[in-house]
């Protein structure tokens, strides 16, 4: 069953088509990677799916329902959440407060004026922080965390909304090998224990091939290959535009 279907998405900035008729499907419970060289249109594609940008044409279906151009907060409520490429946290809130805020939003309690309603969110936040290995940092100001921990918090904020599908934009960018490994473990664990589908884009090929169930390869705004890792690895067009280039470098 497909949790997400992208059909004929186009985004034109003036005459330039950053995303040029992209279609693919994301299967429930899978880890699906979108790869491609710089400027292939991956981030634009993500922005179209999450509602941060309005597509020129094409549709996005979530669980079979048309959600094209819905604003990000609505997408989040419908079960599609993203973590950002540039670390995007609440600098002066504590780690615990940040996660609480996301949980309150999911429980539709963000508007509650009753102080004791914080408790539910706080308890769930502590459990979640425990699960992702950040519980020691609960009382730390988010902006003072290490880069890797900030990335983990970023993903935790997305997780707190209990997404059916989680979009990760280069989750291991700028991470140390150890941090990358931890992030990969986290993503793997998620799909299994929390039944989260993951759609991510990534530069690091080792990460991509080690955890993805399926790959969609983009080049100049178009999809040039789509399939399981071994099939994509053998694809001649992919080798010439992307993997091949890496070997020459």
């Amino acid at each position, binding site marked *: 069953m497909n949790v997400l279907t992208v059909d004929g998405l186009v985004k034109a900035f003036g005459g330039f088509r950053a995303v040029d008729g992209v279609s693919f499907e994301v299967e429930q419970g899978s880890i699906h990677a979108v790869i491609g060289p710089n400027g292939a249109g991956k981030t634009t594609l993500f922005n179209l799916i999450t509602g941060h940008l309005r597509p020129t044409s094409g549709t996005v279906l979530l669980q079979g329902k048309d959600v094209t151009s819905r604003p990000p907060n609505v997408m989040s409520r419908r079960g599609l959440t993203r973590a950002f490429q540039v670390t995007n946290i609440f600098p002066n809130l504590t780690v615990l407060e940040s996660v609480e805020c996301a949980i309150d*939003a999911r429980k539709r309690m963000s508007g509650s004026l009753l102080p004791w309603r*914080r408790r539910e969110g706080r308890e769930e936040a502590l459990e979640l922080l425990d699960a992702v290995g950040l519980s020691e940092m609960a009382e730390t100001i988010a902006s003072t965390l290490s880069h890797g921990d900030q990335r983990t918090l970023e993903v935790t904020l997305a997780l707190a909304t209990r997404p059916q599908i989680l979009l990760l934009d280069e989750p291991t960018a700028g991470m140390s090998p150890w941090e990358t490994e931890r992030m990969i473990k986290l993503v793997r664990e998620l799909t299994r224990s929390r039944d989260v589908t993951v759609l991510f884009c990534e530069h690091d090929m080792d990460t991509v091939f080690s955890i993805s169930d399926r790959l969609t390869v983009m080049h100049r705004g178009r999809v040039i290959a789509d399939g399981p890792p071994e099939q994509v690895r053998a694809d001649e067009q992919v080798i010439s535009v992307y993997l091949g280039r890496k070997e020459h470098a």
Partner: protein
Amino acid sequence: MTVHKPSARRVGEFWGVPVTLALGAALIFAISFVVPTTWLFFLQKVLALGLFAVATNLLVGYGGMVSFGQAVFYGLGAYMIALGWQHYGAPFWLLLMLAPLLGALAALVIGALALRTREFYFALLTLAFSQLFYTIANKWYDFTNGANGVFGPMIPGAIAMPRPGLWFILAVTMLALLALWAITISPFGLTLRAIRENQQRVEAVGVNLYRHKLYAFVLSGAFCALAGALFVVHDQSAYPELLDWMQSGEPVLMALIGGLYHFLGPLVGAFIFVFAHDYLVAASSDTWQLILGLALVLIVLFAPNGVLGLWRQGGGGGLKGLLGRVFQGGTHERPDG
């Protein structure tokens, strides 16, 4: 599954504000029996303006929305009491309850328009509304008495005298401050701070930005109007200047002086502001603006977190350290370091 014990710091954070408020209220009540009448009036003014400043800071310090139009609601609260008395002979107690409702309603309309814009334009639009309401109060002579304002025995005799008047203002202000404080530590208060920190992110976790900002604007408007109504208990008059942009700027300055990022900062700022204003103006009225300007420059450059921020930086032992820890409660942003 970790067991999370509330740390000593968290307990201090929770009780810091209500305990400080209770002690402050007890102190004011006690000295009200011994101090001269001028002090009673001074404290009345500090409390009314302090509530105004704390309510304004819900937007500025907590939500990161700099409004230069909060005097619209403050002035409306004042005029609610004055005009309700003058034109309809309505009882004060009813008008006191209607004032926050009027403030909320006005904030709903103004906020719905102003919050369509962002930051700089939002500040300008709120300022424009302030001038608009000032002009209406000034020109609509038949209804508002124009620039003369409304004077008269609009306050019940029981609270018209300085001492009972102070007690009344003290009681209402404390209840209102406790309500505001509860709001700041509620899920909504947390969401508001998250909005200040990162709008894009808070939207991505599923929060409707516009709706929550408007909610904050309406709440702030209601409490600003209540503060305006209390000002009438103090001054027993209402006049157009209560609505204008100078008046709108005052609570923002008070919050800046006392500390934007502490719940009680604006209250401390109101005390300093009114004290300086009343006593320096008495000394020489020409230099007030100069001194105010100079003080603000110094604060922005050397104490961007206000007077309470200076205290918190202290830490360590002794009285300074103790006060520092007491004031830690109510802090809603901890600057790095």
